[in-house]
C-alpha cells in the first residue's frame, strides 16, 4: 500500500485555488485523501476525528468511531499499550513508526506502523493526540519472505554468492564458507577471482561479459580453488541481478561441489575402459594366438629349408625372435584376461598351485625352488580367470627377477584388513629387486624395468584386476646385497564390492 493520494486533477486545482484563502483547508483535504489512517483522540483515548483512510483501514466509519474509545481497534491483549501511549503523549513525547497489531471491525488483526504526536492548544498545552497509521501487512509479508529466503540461502549446502559487475563479492553464504574455506569477512569486498585457479582466470572475463549482456550461465562445469589451495570440480549457475529499473548491477552465483561426482565418473570411465580392454584382449587373443602359432611353425619350417648359414636363415632367426616378443605380450596380457565368467567359490591356493604348475618347467630350468604355505581354508568367490592372470603375472615377474635361481615363497592365509575379512596372498622372491627410483612407477601402464623384454602392463593389469575385485595390492622391494628381493602382497576381501557387481552387470 502506498501513501500517494489518488491523483484527482480537478480537486487539486480547487485546492490550489483555496490555498491562498486558507491553508488549513489544504491540510484537511490532504488528510481526507490520504490512504493512511489519520485520526485524533483526546487524552482519555476518545476518538475526535477519523478520516476516510481510517474508515478504510479499520472498517469503522467516522460516525461509528467519533466519541468512542480508541481501544475499540486495539486487541484486548494489547490494551495496556494505550496507557503507555497516552502517558508518553501527556509527557509531550512523539512516538514514531511504532509497529504493533490492531483490529478491524471484522475482528481481523493486522500489523500497522503508527506515528503518534501530541496536539497542543494555542497556549501550548497538550490536549489531544494525532495518530497516523499505515497497514504494513504487505511489508511484513515481504520482510518475512525475505527472511525466509535469507535463511534458505544461509542454510544451503550450495555456495550462494553475489558479486557486482566488477567481480567484487557482495554476499557470501555459509555454503560458500564450507566449500571454499573463506569466511564472509574475508571475501565480501574481495575479487571473486581469488577462487579461480591461475589457468582459468580468463573465465571471469567471459562470465562478466555474458552477464552484462543479460545472459545466464547454466550448469557450467569448471574448477575452482579452495583457501587451502586444493582445486576441485564445481557446477555453477550464474544469473544477472537487476535493480528496480531493470539495470544489471551484479550477478548471483550458485555453485555446487561436484568433485565426488567427478571422481565417480572417472572411476566409471576407468572401469569402462578396463572392461573394454578386457573385451578387446579376448577378441585379440582369439584372433592372434592362432595365426601366431601358424607363423611360428612356418618360420621354423622355412628355416629348416634354408642353408644353415645363409642370409635367409639369419633373417628368419630374427623374425622368430621378434615373433617370440609378440607371443610373450600376447601371453602376458591376453592369456587369462577374458575368462571373466561368473565368479565361483574356490580355494585360492588351488589357483596358486595351478599357476605354479604352468611355470613348473621354467622354474626348474632356472633352478628356482618353490616354498608354499597355504592356510586359506575358506573358499572365496572370484573370477577364476582374473585371479589366474594376477598370480600368473606376479609369478612370471618373480621368475624373471631370479635368472640365477633362488627361492619363490608363495603363501596364502585368511586375514582381517580394516573391517573386511579376506584372503591374503604373499608372493616373495629373493631375486635382484626393484631399484627404489622405479618403485613409484611400477604400477603404471607401459612402465617396465625389463627393457625390451617387458611389456609394462603385467603389474598394471594386476592392480586393475585386484582393485576391481575390491582388494589391495602392495609391493616392497630391496636391492641391497644379500637381502635383495621383492614381496608382493595381495588382499582379496570375501565380500564382493558392490560397485564391481554393478559395473559387471552393466558390461555384460
Amino acid at each position, binding site marked *: 500500500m502506498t501513501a500517494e493520494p489518488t491523483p484527482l486533477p480537478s480537486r487539486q486545482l480547487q485546492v490550489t485555488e483555496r490555498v491562498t484563502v486558507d491553508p488549513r483547508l489544504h491540510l484537511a483535504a490532504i488528510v481526507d485523501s490520504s490512504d493512511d489512517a489519520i485520526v485524533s483522540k483526546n487524552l482519555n483515548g476518545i476518538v475526535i476525528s477519523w478520516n476516510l483512510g481510517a474508515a478504510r483501514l479499520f472498517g469503522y466509519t467516522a460516525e461509528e468511531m467519533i466519541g468512542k474509545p480508541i481501544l475499540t481497534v486495539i486487541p484486548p491483549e494489547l490494551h495496556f499499550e494505550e496507557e503507555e501511549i497516552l502517558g508518553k503523549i501527556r509527557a509531550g513525547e512523539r512516538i514514531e513508526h511504532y509497529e504493533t497489531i490492531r483490529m478491524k471491525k471484522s475482528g481481523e488483526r493486522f500489523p500497522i506502523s503508527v506515528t503518534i504526536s501530541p496536539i497542543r492548544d494555542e497556549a501550548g498545552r497538550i490536549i489531544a493526540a494525532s495518530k497516523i497509521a499505515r497497514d504494513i501487512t504487505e511489508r511484513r509479508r515481504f520482510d518475512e519472505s525475505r527472511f525466509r529466503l535469507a535463511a534458505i540461502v544461509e542454510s544451503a549446502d550450495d555456495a550462494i554468492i553475489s558479486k557486482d559487475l566488477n567481480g567484487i563479492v557482495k554476499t557470501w553464504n555459509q555454503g560458500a564458507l564450507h566449500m571454499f574455506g573463506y569466511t564472509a569477512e574475508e571475501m565480501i569486498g574481495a575479487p571473486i577471482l581469488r577462487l579461480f585457479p591461475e589457468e582459468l582466470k580468463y573465465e571471469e572475463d567471459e562470465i562478466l561479459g555474458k552477464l552484462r549482456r543479460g545472459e545466464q550461465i547454466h550448469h557450467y562445469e569448471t574448477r575452482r580453488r579452495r583457501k587451502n589451495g586444493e582445486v576441485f570440480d564445481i557446477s555453477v549457475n550464474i544469473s544477472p541481478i537487476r535493480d528496480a529499473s531493470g539495470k544489471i548491477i551484479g550477478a548471483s552465483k550458485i555453485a555446487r561441489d561436484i568433485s565426488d561426482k567427478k571422481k565417480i565418473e572417472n572411476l566409471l570411465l576407468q572401469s569402462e575402459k578396463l572392461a573394454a580392454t578386457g573385451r578387446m584382449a579376448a577378441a585379440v587373443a582369439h584372433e592372434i594366438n592362432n595365426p*601366431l602359432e601358424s607363423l611360428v611353425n612356418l618360420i621354423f619350417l622355412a628355416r629348416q629349408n634354408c642353408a644353415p648359414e645363409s642370409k635367409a636363415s639369419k633373417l628368419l632367426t630374427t623374425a622368430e625372435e621378434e615373433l617370440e616378443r609378440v607371443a610373450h605380450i600376447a601371453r602376458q596380457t591376453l592369456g587369462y584376461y577374458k575368462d571373466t565368467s561368473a565368479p565361483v567359490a574356490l580355494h585360492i591356493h588351488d589357483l596358486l598351485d595351478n599357476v605354479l604348475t604352468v611355470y613348473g618347467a621354467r622354474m626348474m630350468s632356472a633352478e628356482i625352488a618353490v616354498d608354499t604355505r597355504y592356510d586359506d581354508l575358506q573358499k572365496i568367490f572370484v573370477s577364476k580367470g582374473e585371479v589366474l592372470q594376477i598370480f600368473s603375472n606376479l609369478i612370471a615377474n618373480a621368475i624373471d627377477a631370479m635368472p640365477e635361481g633362488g627361492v619363490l615363497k608363495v603363501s596364502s592365509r585368511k586375514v582381517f584388513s580394516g573391517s573386511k575379512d579376506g584372503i591374503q596372498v604373499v608372493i616373495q622372491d629373493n631375486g635382484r629387486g626393484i631399484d627404489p627410483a622405479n618403485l613409484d612407477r611400477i604400477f603404471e601402464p607401459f612402465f617396465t624395468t625389463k627393457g625390451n623384454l617387458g611389456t609394462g602392463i603385467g603389474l598394471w593389469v594386476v592392480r586393475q584386476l585386484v582393485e576391481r575385485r575390491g582388494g589391495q595390492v602392495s609391493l616392497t622391494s630391496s636391492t641391497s646385497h644379500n637381502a635383495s628381493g621383492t614381496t608382493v602382497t595381495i588382499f582379496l576381501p570375501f565380500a564382493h564390492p558392490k560397485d564391481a557387481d554393478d559395473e559387471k552387470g552393466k558390461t555384460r
Partner: protein
Amino acid sequence: MLMPFIAKSTLAGNESGESRRAPMSSRAPDPESALSRTKVLVVDDQKLIADTIAEILSNAGFETMAAYDGWEALEAAGRFHPHWLLSDVLMPRMNGVELAITLRQTDPQLTILLFSGQAGISDILLEGQRRGYEFELLAKPIHPLKLIERLKQE
C-alpha cells in the same frame, strides 16, 4: 600348399573320396631313430596349424598325421593308432576335450596334450574335470622346439 599329406574328411562331407591319410615320410630322418616310431595325431581346425605342426614333428623324426576336426580325428585314430594326441580345444562339432575323452576310453595308453590359443575354454576343461578327466594344456603359440622337447619327455 607345402603339405604333401593333406587329409580329407569323409565325415565332414566337404570333400569327396576316401580318406587318404598316409603316414608322412620323414624328410630329414632324425638320428635318434628310436623316436621315429612315435606316432603323433595332430588335430586343429585351423588347417595350416595342423599341417605345419605335423610337418615339423615329421622332420623331427615322429610319424605324424593331421586331422582338422574331432570326428575326422576319431576316424584317423582308428587307422593310425597314435601314441600321442596333440589337439586344439575349441573346434566345431567336437571339441578337443570330448575327442580326448573318447580316444582315451578306447586307448588308455594314449598320451594326450591339448593346446589352445584361447582363454575362454575353462568351461570345456571344467566339464572334462567333472567327468574325471584332466589333460595337460599348452598355450598357443608354442615354439616347435619346446613342443618337440615335450613330446620327447615320454
